[in-house]
């Protein structure tokens, strides 16, 4: 059973506009969340994280928002650039029980020049 869900398999955005990628989770014990970016034929690369003690974390063009009551997080990319075109995975873990991150199924973002 998928504990982390990304319900949009794909998203297309015009260059310069905002991209919003969404992620939902079911386990209320999850307290650490990550976003990864993946290009074809490469491994995922870490993008940004957020702890459950925060509701927002920002790094340059990337901002992650966490809504614990809704068990929802989102990644905002502003402004979107063609090089952002990739598959984005969210992942969550319960740090109290250790090592396992649960990943969503990914959203393929296409930024149109």
């Amino acid at each position: 059973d998928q504990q982390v869900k990304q319900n949009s398999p794909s998203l297309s955005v015009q260059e310069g506009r905002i991209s919003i990628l969404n992620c939902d989770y079911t386990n209320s014990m999850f307290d650490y969340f990550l976003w990864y970016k993946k290009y074809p034929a490469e491994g995922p690369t870490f993008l940004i994280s957020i702890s459950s003690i925060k509701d927002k974390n920002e790094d340059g063009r990337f901002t992650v928002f966490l809504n614990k009551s809704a068990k929802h997080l989102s990644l905002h990319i502003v402004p979107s650039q063609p090089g952002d075109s990739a598959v984005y995975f969210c992942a969550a873990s319960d740090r109290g029980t250790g090592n396992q991150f649960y990943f969503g199924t990914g959203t393929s973002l296409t930024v149109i020049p």
Partner: protein
Amino acid sequence: DAGITQSPRHKVTETGTPVTLRCHQTENHRYMYWYRQDPGHGLRLIHYSYGVKDTDKGEVSDGYSVSRSKTEDFLLTLESATSSQTSVYFCAISESGQGIGGYTFGSGTRLTVV
């Protein structure tokens, strides 16, 4: 990432044969992981290691075994490959057992079992 390499990058094998995938790191990280990526499932943890000779099972460990005899190497073995094990396999490393700052992933091994 130059700090982590997986071999082979591609492999085709027959059902019932044993297969070993290798992950090698030069970062001296304590924690190493094997994931598989499948359509509709994202990445799922197979096994992980928290030190030399210290390993544990992940979410989808059935049919897989691992070994870590040196800090830098983490081997994933399919004792008798099945078609359901056709997948892309990723190795990852981490300094932190809680994954703080995320994992560093290798480039993956595409395994096809025919």
